[in-house]
């Protein structure tokens, strides 16, 4: 059976070139970067090389502005709580959006319990907030703005540059979760005007369990875990050398192929959107129709439920995801789908298709062939369907 992986926003395979690099640092050059002997120095060199690769990819002026973390979630936690605690004397107000990942929203919720005040900006129907909304929410207690670059569920790209200008004018620290955008669309910390940025390895053909936080020189911030002095006292624990090497290589490769991949996948994306909308009635495109990630397609199909769709597509060899409640284990549909105004029963029928470097036009055609009869069959089974 044909196997088509269409779930690159969930995770990606490690690029063979990345895996090869990592392998060397697992077995051969296995030293602890803190050791001063030859094994340690070899590991240290690799870590600093990777740090340079990450800095270059996102246009950081100083290589020391990159700290490696155990993933996007930890970087989000570090950025938000680290800024909040370090700036408590100045104020307690944080601005974020309803589109953010749980790593940001749950962290903000926790901070609320600890006495911070959080404004969660509502989204328009496409999942965007405007710089004006951000500006209007700022008070003299505001210490942090956190807005994601591109949304994982609906692919919409936020006006980060404009928000960055507002943040700069009002002198407020600005964090951006760029987990989904890095390697797919240009990310330059100076052009975007961000002070902290979150990166995750496993979304860009690097390994899981590694990420990075960019932190602009001079930003008021403090660590949130305690231990050894690694990562310039920003993040303790023996460095995940192989993971760091993998992230460095992965972000370099992703940057190299970004433009050509973006063009190729945008073609697939637009074909998928127009053909699905044409072939299948009662379909809603979620997210912005054009201002979205090149590899990202997402719909809601009325009258049916996401998990059933997923299972049927899985039996046809297609791996895909949904924001349906039944797939989340939480009994509630995705907060993003609700925030863009979809009623619960519609959100249940969500489907997300995210393409990657190994997908071909044939994969797209296979999907377009397989999907309609599945939707039809599920609608026949559905008591909601008009028939």
């Amino acid at each position, binding site marked *: 059976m044909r196997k088509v992986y269409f779930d690159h926003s969930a995770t990606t395979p490690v690029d063979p070139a990345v895996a090869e690099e990592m392998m060397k640092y697992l077995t051969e050059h296995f030293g602890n970067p803190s050791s001063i002997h030859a094994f340690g120095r070899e590991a240290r060199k690799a870590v600093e090389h990777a740090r340079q690769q990450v800095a270059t990819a996102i246009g950081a002026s100083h290589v020391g502005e990159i700290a490696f973390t155990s993933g996007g979630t930890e970087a989000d936690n570090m950025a938000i709580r680290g800024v909040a605690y370090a700036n408590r004397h100045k104020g307690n107000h944080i601005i974020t959006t309803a589109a953010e990942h749980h790593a940001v929203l749950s962290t903000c919720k926790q901070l609320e319990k600890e006495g911070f005040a959080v404004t969660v900006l509502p989204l328009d129907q496409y999942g965007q907030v405007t710089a004006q909304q951000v500006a209007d929410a700022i008070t003299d207690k505001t210490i942090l703005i956190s807005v994601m670059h591109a949304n994982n569920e609906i692919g919409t790209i936020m006006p980060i540059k404009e928000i960055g200008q507002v943040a700069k004018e009002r002198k407020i620290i600005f964090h951006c979760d760029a987990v989904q955008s890095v390697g797919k669309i240009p990310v330059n910390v100076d052009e975007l005007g961000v002070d902290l940025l979150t990166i995750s390895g496993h979304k860009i053909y690097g390994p899981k369990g590694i990420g990075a936080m960019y932190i602009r020189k001079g930003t008021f911030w403090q660590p949130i875990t305690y231990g050894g002095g690694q990562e310039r006292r920003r993040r303790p624990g023996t460095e995940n050398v192989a993971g760091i090497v993998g992230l460095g290589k992965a972000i370099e490769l992703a940057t190299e192929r970004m433009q050509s991949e973006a063009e190729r996948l945008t073609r697939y994306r637009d074909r998928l959107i127009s053909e699905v909308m044409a072939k299948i009635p009662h379909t809603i495109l979620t997210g912005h129709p054009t201002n979205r990630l090149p590899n990202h397609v997402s719909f809601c199909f009325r*009258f*049916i*439920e*996401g*998990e*059933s769709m997923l*299972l049927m597509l899985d*039996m046809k060899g297609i791996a895909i995801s949904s924001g*349906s*409640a*039944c*797939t989340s*284990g939480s*009994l*509630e*549909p995705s907060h993003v789908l609700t925030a863009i105004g979809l009623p*619960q*029963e519609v959100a*249940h029928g969500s489907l997300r298709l995210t393409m990657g470097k190994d997908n071909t036009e044939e994969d797209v055609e296979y999907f377009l062939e397989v999907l309609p009869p599945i939707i039809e069959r599920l609608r*026949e*089974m*559905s*008591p*909601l369907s008009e028939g």
Partner: protein
Amino acid sequence: MYSEKVMDHFTNPRNVGEIENPDGVGQVGNPSCGDIMKITLKIEDNVIKDIKFKTFGCGAAVATSSMVTEMAMGKTIDEALKISNKAVAEALDGLPPVKMHCSNLAADALKAAIEDYLKKQQA
């Protein structure tokens, strides 16, 4: 995640559809999770002669619906009323813990359909 039996009933659901002019109709739904099950019955001499379902929900919801129709088919009303949600889950070799509460409503739908039939009989 799902047992082979669940996947079998999900892949080849038994008795899908809606009976025309049914003797009993039952619909239940769990608003928090969003699954809705509708069962229609044909009853003769207190025996379930035909049963069909329609379901909006996850794999477990489809499988439990299918299973309950198979379990109820040919049974007397009294026997069918004794089918519990737990029995349906067991007949499917179990459900994942997160699914136990939300997708496991098929027996309730069956009960609702039988009660609807009994109410119509009284009227």
